[in-house]
């Protein structure tokens, strides 16, 4: 089976400094790829390179290739705006837009020109259910997204991303500020979502990668040290540095 995403010798520079140093890997469709590594190992930079979010920052330059379904994301024919409609992203800090819960979820579809009220209503319920948030907010969809708790906000952000019906979902430490119950909710949602989506989950929590991902990639200092099935990475890694990290000897 051809991979959903092929990354070839991907390098990202910020102001001349090489943050991501030549990463190559394949991401299989309908799988969750966990990306682990200590702070400063360029996990987030890698993630943001996949939907060209890095280039919103000044002084950023990217080299190498990222193929999504065989199409080069950095090729001249690719429009980053169209790309970001296909690739959803959930950030580390929950960031609801200063709109109602309902309007948060339909923000993307409205940009795509969906006007039909019934269609939007259906989408809101479907996505909030998929993010395990529906039961908690179904009676106050008109209330502000900013008034939700942190865990609810992050699930709202996930629902908002799902409403785009993205093929690929990128999550950047989505649970870093959340309590264990909210974290469990999000992981539960992800395990169901991979039936229809391909997911990349960057996490500082090694245990989360062990629980939630099918494959795990270990990053260190901007390089990919090792990638493989999650079970093997955690029980029988081939690189000494991976072993030290997953057993908690450093990082």
């Amino acid at each position: 089976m051809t991979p959903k995403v092929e990354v070839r010798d991907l390098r990202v520079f910020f102001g001349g400094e090489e943050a991501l140093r030549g990463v190559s890997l394949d991401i299989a469709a309908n799988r969750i790829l966990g990306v682990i590594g200590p702070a400063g190992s360029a996990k987030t930079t890698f993630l943001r390179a996949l939907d060209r979010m890095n280039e919103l920052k000044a002084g950023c330059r990217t080299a190498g290739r990222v193929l999504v379904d065989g199409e080069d994301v950095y090729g001249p024919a690719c429009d980053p705006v169209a790309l970001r409609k296909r690739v959803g992203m959930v950030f580390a800090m929950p960031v609801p837009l200063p709109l109602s819960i309902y309007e948060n979820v339909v923000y993307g579809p409205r940009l795509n020109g969906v006007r039909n009220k019934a269609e939007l209503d259906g989408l809101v319920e479907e996505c909030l259910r998929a993010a395990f948030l529906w039961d908690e907010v179904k009676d106050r969809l008109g209330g502000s997204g900013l008034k939700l708790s942190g865990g609810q906000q992050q699930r709202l952000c996930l629902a908002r991303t799902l409403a785009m019906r993205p093929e690929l979902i990128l999550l950047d430490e989505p649970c870093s500020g959340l309590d264990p119950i909210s974290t469990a909710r999000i992981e539960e949602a992800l395990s169901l979502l991979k039936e229809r989506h391909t997911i990349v989950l960057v996490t500082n929590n090694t245990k989360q990668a062990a629980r939630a991902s099918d494959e795990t990639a270990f990053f260190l200092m901007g390089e990919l040290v090792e990638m493989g099935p999650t079970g093997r990475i955690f029980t029988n890694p081939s690189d000494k540095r991976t072993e030290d990290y997953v057993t908690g000897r450093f990082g």
Partner: protein
Amino acid sequence: MNAHRASQRVAVSILAAATFLCLAIVAFVIGFVLEKGLPQLSWEFLFTKPRDMGKAGGILPAIVGTLALSLMAIAVALPLGVGTAVYLAEYTRETRVTKVIRFGTDCLAGIPSIIFGLFGYIFFVTTLKMGWSLIAGALTLAIMVLPTLIRTSEEAIRSVPQSWREVSMSLGATRWETVRKVVLPNALPGIVTGVMLSFGRSIGETAAVIFTAGSSFRLPKSAFDSARTLAVHFYILAREGISTDKAYGTAAVLVIAVLAVNGLTYALMGGFMKRKAR
């Protein structure tokens, strides 16, 4: 220990005295103008034309002239100012060019208004042959209030959290869609404040207006008629010793108008804040 406390007490007293003095000066000026001016106010004064060069009659043309001039100035300056602010804050990275633009607008803000008046007279009134007219005055005032509008709008736009822009872009919005749907709605309170400040400044302006809109006290019928504003009317009445009483009456109307604009600004801001906190 006691010396510390004593110095603390002295400092607080001096600061409180300074604050009180400022308030007292403002209250004195407003009180003085209102005390002399309020007795002059009547329906006749507000809603009839002046007679006998302004010795008698009312100030209706000046009220109409002031409103028309200020509204026209804002109508010109608002799109230009907000457009510039959006461009500077959203579409440019901090480079030498943006620094020059910002330096330019700051310089513009520091120029005395009579220089704007002179410029407006030479450029709009004479070169473009607009004559003394509302339109020449409004364009001059628009240039004068632009720096304030740009600065306040730019600050309001920059105060919108960066993370909201990122989220919007990550959902497939273009930068313009992000500006329209996320940035501008949330920068609105700051922009409105800038508009109100500019409006207040236009209402009270004299030097820039007298050279460009002229001082005819006929009721203006179109944008190309000359008109007299309240501030100019007051200036002429007082300067030429026509009528001190009518001058104070005019000043009272002017002061009340400026207070009303400022009050309205605060009320609007309060409303915005409440809506955002909901």
